[in-house]
């Protein structure tokens, strides 16, 4: 009798362990939207250009009306109501990872449609683009310059300054020349390496201390 009890207890204990581990594994919280590429893959994807489309090209596609591009307005519904680019649909940037939109995006991706993101400025669209890229969508483009830039760019199609395109990271000034024009001794300042920044060693968090 005693022997049997011991066996039972052992069995019950191991079954309990198994059940606890199993439920733990099953209910393990997984983020809703998974990253499709590692951080290093993302960095490499950033290096490839061609993810930006010019306002003029967007306009051409709209005029052709061939449905090859789908415009997405990332601004708030209020701003969208006031004015937006013709056929654009409104998905506020905060909502781009909602389930219904994601399903829609993968649907369009299967149909080889390209979506063009624009926001109030290029940085906003770029943020959304990076999130979607990391979530595994490769069928998105960023419109250069943002919403405010579209109308002047399209209206002044022949303007040489505009047709050269807009590049968010293009210097607006020759920084050195501007500094020199204000009498700064630039040449020496630029040649000399900037002061080395002292790197303060991270203080290790002390492990549990104390005790008697």
């Amino acid at each position, binding site marked *: 009798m005693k022997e049997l009890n011991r066996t039972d207890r052992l069995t019950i204990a*191991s079954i309990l362990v198994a059940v606890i581990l199993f439920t733990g594994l099953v209910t393990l919280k997984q983020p809703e939207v998974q990253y499709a590429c590692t951080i*290093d893959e993302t960095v490499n994807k950033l290096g490839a250009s061609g993810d930006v489309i010019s306002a003029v090209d967007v306009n051409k596609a709209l005029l052709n009306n061939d449905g090859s591009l789908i415009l997405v307005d990332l601004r708030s519904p209020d701003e969208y109501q006031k004015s937006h680019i013709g056929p654009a649909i409104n998905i506020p940037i*905060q909502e781009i990872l909602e389930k219904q939109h994601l399903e829609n995006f993968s649907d369009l991706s299967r149909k080889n449609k390209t979506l063009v993101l624009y926001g109030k400025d290029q940085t906003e669209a770029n943020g959304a683009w*990076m999130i979607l890229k*990391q979530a595994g969508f490769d069928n998105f483009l960023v419109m250069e310059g943002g919403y405010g830039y579209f109308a002047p760019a399209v209206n002044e199609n022949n303007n040489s300054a505009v047709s050269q395109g807009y590049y968010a990271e293009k210097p607006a000034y020759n920084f050195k020349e501007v500094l020199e024009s204000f*009498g*700064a001794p630039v040449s020496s300042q630029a040649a000399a390496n900037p002061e080395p920044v002292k790197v303060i060693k991270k203080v290790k968090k002390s492990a549990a201390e*104390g005790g008697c």
Partner: protein
Amino acid sequence: MNKKYIIPVVLLVGLAFILVLLPKKKPYNELPAKDLLKQVTSSSKFISPEFVADRLIKKDPSMILVDVRSEDLFREYSLPGALNIPLQEIVKPAQMELLSQEGIDYIFYSTGDVLADQAWILCKRQRIDHIYVMKGGLNEWFSSFFMSLPPAETASNEEIELYQFRSAVRQYFTGGETQTARKPAGEAISITPKKKKSAAEGGC
């Protein structure tokens, strides 16, 4: 062998198999995509050039500028005291370690703010705190400090103060005599201190 051990052994071996078959965990504990999106859309990631200039002039030791442009562009011109970490390098372990130092605000800048924002998003995914993007980048830095025109006679006090501050910054960075460069009021950016992880304390 004792029969009573068979059931637990079978169970544990089965569990061991399940554990082996589980997908490999990612090396970093990354910020989930939805939380990353929240961070990306918050406006607190931007810091104005005026705020950066103010801290630079005060030689604030808790701020380090990070130039995410290429090495060539950095050599040609960079803000005083800036570190150069090109975008392609930024998620390398050494840089991650550097950027996760506590008590230091890292301010990313590039020519505009798209490149800096990209670097910022990458770092945020790796759960780096205390990083900011300089709004408008060097282009805005130059347009506010070097290209701003004096305000009209009828301008509000704030506008005049802002202009005076900008002129003072310009003089500071071009080697002119320094006026008192005081940042215009009403632009306080609150920086929430990181919660200290308390080490497990022992005792009796």
